[in-house]
């Protein structure tokens, strides 16, 4: 802990050496803060628990997480990689695509790969993609929204026009163009998605919230206390819009997964396997035309995409009740 010097301009005696006064606090401050954070987390959890929608969503997400974690175990210890590999696996004992049989619980795709293995393998990567792009979009969006609201004027105009342009362009066709220019693998794709979302709707929503915070008297009070612009943005505006950012993070996961599935379906992403890719495989081999006959080729992945997005949306709805006290039943 470094001792910070009092400003030399302060000519008045007593401040130079702050007088001793026993505050009567026995624990170090960081410990008290930690306890308070834990307590507020516990309180928020109590509110979240009340929301049936939110809890169902959370349970589904945990189930997906467990399913994704099963993959390294299955491929290393249970399944033969030659047969069950999601990209290059092939089962020589069957005609492909094979409907569900004993060894392949969800059947195989047209080139002999196990559907269940593909689903399991993709789960972890969908998590990665969704979370990464959502975190990027929310961190960048919160910061830009807070800056635009706080400074107003020119800064605001620039970011709002950029947001207009991003929102004006239809999202998926724009990504198709980007995807056809550069073959996107999963990390660059998540980053591009994150930034696109950050500069679009997220900025506008968080700016609107930050504008409400900006005019509160405690912002004036912080300015009178001597806080710089950066201090006010960091210590007052961002913490007060953060709950909303967190809420939108959940909704952004959904957006990222849907975009990935759509682009994979068009086959313009440099991703070897994903839920969207599985539908793409079925489609390119011509099996989507016979709708009900080869259901195992598209139904499992389609169902997973829907359920996964729904689960994040449901958690978002549950968090909404934590963030907006007016929505609570009590």
């Amino acid at each position: 802990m470094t001792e910070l010097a009092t400003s030399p301009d302060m000519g008045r005696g007593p401040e130079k050496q702050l007088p001793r006064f026993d505050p009567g606090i026995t624990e170090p401050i960081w410990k008290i803060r930690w306890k308070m954070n834990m307590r507020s987390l516990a309180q928020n959890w109590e509110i979240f628990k009340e929301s049936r929608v939110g809890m169902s969503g959370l349970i589904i997400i945990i189930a997906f997480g467990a399913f994704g974690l099963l993959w390294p175990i299955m491929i290393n210890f249970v399944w033969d990689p030659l047969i069950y590999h999601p990209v290059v696996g092939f089962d020589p004992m069957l005609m492909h695509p094979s409907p569900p049989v004993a060894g392949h619980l969800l059947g195989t795709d047209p080139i002999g790969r196990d559907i269940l293995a593909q689903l399991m393998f993709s789960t972890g990567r969908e998590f990665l993609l969704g979370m990464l792009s959502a975190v990027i979009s929310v961190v960048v969006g919160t910061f830009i929204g807070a800056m635009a609201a706080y400074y107003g004027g020119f800064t605001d105009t620039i970011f709002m026009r950029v947001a207009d342009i991003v929102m004006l362009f239809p999202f998926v066709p724009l990504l198709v163009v980007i995807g056809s220019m550069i073959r996107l693998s999963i990390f660059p794709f998540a980053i591009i998605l994150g930034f696109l979302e950050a500069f679009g709707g997220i900025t506008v929503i968080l700016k609107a919230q930050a504008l409400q915070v900006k005019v509160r008297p405690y912002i004036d009070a912080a300015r009178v206390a001597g806080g710089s612009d950066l201090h006010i943005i960091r210590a007052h505006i961002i913490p007060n819009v953060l709950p909303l950012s967190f809420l939108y993070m959940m909704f952004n996961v959904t957006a990222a997964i849907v975009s990935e599935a759509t682009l994979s379906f068009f086959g313009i992403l440099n991703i070897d396997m994903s839920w969207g890719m599985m539908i793409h495989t079925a489609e390119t081999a011509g099996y989507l035309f016979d709708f009900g006959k080869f259901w195992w080729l598209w139904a499992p992945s389609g169902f997973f995409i829907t359920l996964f997005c729904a689960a994040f949306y449901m958690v978002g709805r549950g968090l909404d009740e934590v963030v907006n006290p007016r929505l609570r039943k009590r």
Partner: protein
Amino acid sequence: MALPDSRLDRDTGDTIVSVKNLKKYYPVGRGLFRRQHALLHAVDDISFEVARGEVLGLVGESGCGKTTTGRMLVRLTNPTSGSIIVDQTDVSSISGADMGPFRQKVQMIFQDPYESLDPRMTIFDIVSEPLNVNHIGNLEQREERVAEMLTRVGLAPPATFMFRFPHELSGGQRQRVAIARALVVNPTFVVADEPTSMLDVSIRTGVMKLLTELREDFGISYLYITHDLAVARYLCDRIAVMYLGKIVEIAGSEEVIRNPLHPYARALISAVPVPDPAIARPVPNVRGGVSKPINPHPRCRFYERCPVAQKVCQDSDHPELREVEGNHFAACHLL
């Protein structure tokens, strides 16, 4: 209420705040195709001084420019023109590195204790914020200082309050926190913007007593903005009455209450209810509503409502403040 002589003696203390020809005009109705816009004269050419250790009350009706004046003194609003000198520093010329020392000298207490404390910060964070942003002391020293201030404003023991959130405190307690935050850096001048108006009457007296005590202990000067004449009389040494951006009367508080000279001040004081049905108080003698502060006519601002207005009031510009009696200034052509 008799005041001790020392509080009325204007000549002893030196001047801490000196405001000269302060103006704040806001453009209104600025449109895309209208280049010439009207100006709202929020504060229109006012001058006053606050002596060291003095409490100057600024009273007036809603929208007369009290708060704008207060905000300009702490530089939350930049004046259109005029000079503000606080403790030998020109407020409007401060920039960059000089801002820190200025912020430690001049503080403000806000009106609404429910809105002036960040709901996501603990009381400790709120009170230590001025120390924090001005880099005063280390964490341990700040902790001691905050605890001391909290005890001083009557939130004792401090350990039970420091790590609570504003929503866990009552209105009076919150305003005490706001006062502690303003005084934690030992300011020499504090702008108090109606700090008791949002409080219950039962709590109000306590906060007012506290402000008086702190003033005596720390030698702070206040600009006390209020619309409540009783509060102004209790707390202030002098009272300045504002009307539509102009100071129309300024004198010692008892003098203003007992012997108001300006017709507006007279009306204001006769409008104060007296809790005794036997006393027949004079009927406030004003006409019409508040005139518009947007591009006002070059005549006395009070002309339209004045009961004693004459031709001179309409023909000549708003009168200057004149010393009508000893240390009693008023702005009226007819005095």
